[in-house]
């Protein structure tokens, strides 16, 4: 099992579930009351090889991280019911659109849900995700990557090493975050 080297790091059935966890979608909870998204990533001082990741997306297409050597890959573990996951997803799409031509790939790994649930959720997002939404239906991948809470994101460099981590919802296209990611994009 992959364990992030934290010591080396430096830097009613429709509305009631929403009330329970998805406070961001309920009008009675003001935006100011929501926990703020983070605006920084955690750089891992001594990067380790990324664990394997080979899963199907919601269209049944298999994606293998091993095939993405040479690209910078953002691996995001999330779930539709997770409020910070929902809140950071549009910023992840904006980041992807900004840098996909320069070699950024995003793999959003839904933990523990089925295709219908994830597919229905994507229609609620603006902008809607254009990156692959993978299904980790038994949460084995999340466990293999040492994920303890959702959302958790990792950045895998073109050599296949985990170089950056983010635990908790993050504004992934924030200028400070972009500044951390850009240096690792593949060289033209």
């Amino acid at each position, binding site marked *: 099992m992959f364990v*992030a080297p*934290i*010591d080396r*790091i430096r*830097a*009613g*059935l429709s509305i*009631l*579930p929403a*009330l*329970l*966890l998805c*406070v961001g979608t309920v009008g*009675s*909870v003001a935006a100011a*009351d929501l*926990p703020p998204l*983070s*605006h*920084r990533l*955690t750089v891992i001082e001594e990067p380790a090889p990324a664990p394997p990741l080979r899963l199907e997306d919601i269209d049944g297409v298999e994606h293998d991280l091993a095939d993405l050597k040479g690209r910078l890959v953002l691996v995001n573990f999330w*779930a539709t*019911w*997770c*409020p*910070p996951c929902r809140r950071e997803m549009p910023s992840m799409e904006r980041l992807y659109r900004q840098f996909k031509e320069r070699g950024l790939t995003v793999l959003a790994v839904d*933990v*523990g*849900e*089925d295709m219908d649930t994830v597919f229905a959720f994507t229609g609620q997002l603006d902008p809607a995700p254009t990156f692959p939404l993978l299904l980790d239906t*038994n*949460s084995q991948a*999340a466990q293999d990557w040492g994920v*303890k*809470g*959702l959302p958790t994101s990792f950045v895998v460099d073109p050599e296949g090493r985990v170089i950056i*981590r*983010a*635990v*908790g*919802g993050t504004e992934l296209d924030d200028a400070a975050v972009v500044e951390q990611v850009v240096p690792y994009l593949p060289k033209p």
Partner: protein
Amino acid sequence: MRFSHQTGPNGPQSCRLSVRHTAAAVAVATVLAGPPSSAEPVRIDPETGAATFEIQAHGVSLSLTQLLPDQVRAFYVARGFDLDDADVFAGACVYMTVLRNDTTPGTLDFRLSDWEVQHNEEVHPLPPLDDWLAQWTARGVPDSARLAFRWAQFPSEQSYAPGEWNQGMLATGLPPGSRFDLIARWMIADQTYEGRLDDVRCTD
């Protein structure tokens, strides 16, 4: 409301925030709150009446917002629990919990097994995640529902670099109507820190 800060060379760093009445809390905080920690205002959801209790101490923020039994019940029934099974958890005083490393000088580590609730002058550990999962297995809760339960909980242990945080459910195991103190503990560079939320109410 009581707000004090204690520092010792070897003992835990402790910051205490007691909330008994919202109005009184805000008023007294104005007088007694001071650096290095300050109390966040308590929020009350206008529709549900659920209160948020918050503390910021030693570069760390912690908040609890009660999830009312109907809300908890609905969430888990929607994810495959029978009503009877969902009722068991809904009746355990569940809070949406947020812990964030705002500005500590190093990595923060915690284990929920180090946290306690003080209720009726007795101190109790929080019910462990594994105990809940074992109970759901024994009750025949479907695998997918148990998986949803596991990931919806506040992590049993975690490490946060500055800026990192989690949000999840935390059950005290106390009956609805209880009032309790939550004692949270975390480690930074081999030093134990403690944050207390006193007199938290669990509305039934």
